[in-house]
């Protein structure tokens, strides 16, 4: 474990305690999950398709009410979406607003912040610049490629300056090259803005590559099978990190836990 992670561990920002979630009287999506996230940490949750990953993130950020158990943010109970947490949805095409330009989409959440017009404008510019879309600020989302649209969604979240960014399979529907790009963008944003990251994915390699810690979920109704620290050196670099022997050992361990071979990682 790196020194940074040890220090961070003492500074717990998010705590999920015995969380259970049942939809109405029907599906039990989450059996029982407990986890914690420290300030500045990058935590991933890996699970098979339908494991309740989206459900978990929505419950953590207060969009869904837990059936039982608690979510604590800075030791305060979460009952409604708090401004400290922002969720980036799996399906960018549906969460962006097609009637707004890139700039207006990124500025959208700032309507709720009591800031001067100048301050808001500079937050927007900075966020768009950070995801490398300055040249497309006046475009509409549907004029952009899938990867660029996901960048807009990320910029919108970053402009809001959350403490924790929750990412729900944010790179699942883009091609492999774009995916690597966006992964590194996420690492950069974390360093630049000091945002704590909680990522949900079914891509084991991605989880290991990005994270300080990984939680492995069982198939639904889900429980946490294992918590795994990722003591790979920082900063991470696609080729070097992914060919590291420690990296390979970790991913193989997680594959075994999920009970699947690498080729059979479920498609989104």
């Amino acid at each position, binding site marked *: 474990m790196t020194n940074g992670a040890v220090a961070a561990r003492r500074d717990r920002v998010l705590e999920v305690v015995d969380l259970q979630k049942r939809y109405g009287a029907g599906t039990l999506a989450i059996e029982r999950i407990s986890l914690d996230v420290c300030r500045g940490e990058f935590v991933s949750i890996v699970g098979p398709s339908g494991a309740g990953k989206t459900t978990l993130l*929505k419950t953590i*950020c207060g*969009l869904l009410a837990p059936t039982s158990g608690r979510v604590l943010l800075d030791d305060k109970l979460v009952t409604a*979406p708090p*401004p400290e*947490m*922002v*969720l980036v*949805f799996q*399906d960018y095409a*549906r*969460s962006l*607003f*097609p*009637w*707004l330009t890139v700039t207006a989409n990124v500025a*959208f*959440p700032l*309507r*709720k912040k009591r800031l001067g017009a100048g301050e808001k404008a500079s937050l927007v510019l900075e966020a768009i610049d950070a995801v490398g879309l300055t040249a497309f600020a006046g475009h*509409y*989302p*549907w*004029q952009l490629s899938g990867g660029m649209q996901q960048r807009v969604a990320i910029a919108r979240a970053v402009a*809001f300056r959350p403490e924790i960014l929750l990412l729900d399979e944010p790179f699942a529907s883009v091609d492999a090259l774009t995916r690597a790009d966006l992964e590194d963008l996420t690492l950069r944003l974390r360093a630049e803005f000091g945002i704590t990251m909680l990522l949900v994915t079914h891509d084991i390699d991605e989880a290991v590559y990005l994270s300080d810690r990984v939680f492995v979920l069982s198939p639904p109704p889900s429980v946490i099978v294992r918590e795994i620290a990722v003591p790979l050196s920082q900063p991470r670099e696609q080729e070097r990190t992914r060919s590291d022997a420690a990296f390979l050992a970790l991913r193989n361990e997680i594959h075994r836990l999920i009970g699947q071979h690498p080729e059979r990682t479920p498609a989104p």
Partner: protein
Amino acid sequence: MRGRRLLGLATIVVLLAAWELAARAGGNVYVPPPSQIAVTFVHEWFSPQFGQEAVPSIWRLLAGFVIATIVGVALGVAIGVSDALYRTLDPVLQVLRALPPTAVIPVGILLLGIGDSMKVAVIVFGAVWPILVNSVDGARSVSSERLDTARNFGFSRLETIVAVTFPSALPQIFAGLRVGLALAFIMIVISEMVGGSNGLGYAILSAQRTFSIPEMYAGIVLLAILGYGLNALFTLLERRVLAWHLGSTAVTR
């Protein structure tokens, strides 16, 4: 592209020419030649008569349509965002929408007489249902990701309706407005025919009754131009307001 346009115009010219020749040769008083209708049209409508007959029709139509729009969109979105309201009112709306709208004109005459308020009221009644029903459908079909996004950023329910639900529903609302506009036209013409002392509907029906045949045709032509013109204006507005929608659907297609 250009050749196609020309062919389309040529058809119209040929039809008009055939009509002109047939009318001159046939001498049927019920079918005046287009040239005579054109002369009558200029004579009739480039005159104070325009102010007496056309202007009242136009403003009643617009007033009724605007009121129907405001009422239909506001109520429709409100019903669409509330499951309880939707379940209670939707079947009722379906029946009201299917009611042949001109059937209520006698009720309007009974309650409000034959003045302007009756005409505006029946136009509102005629145009409001498609607007209302489409607003309901539009508000209900907003994706949950969009609503969750707004909630995630701390938007209240009302703020979410204004900033997310309403714009999302706009394409459907416009589809309803287009149908509503057509119904508003039917309502103004019929209400003026059934209970009027002025207006275009009244003018063309009384021209027919007094056998002022070219005048009747001229009136129909004016109504046609108004119908076409308002529809074109509406399309223009729609293209502006829904540019994002047209663009995004063209991309995914």
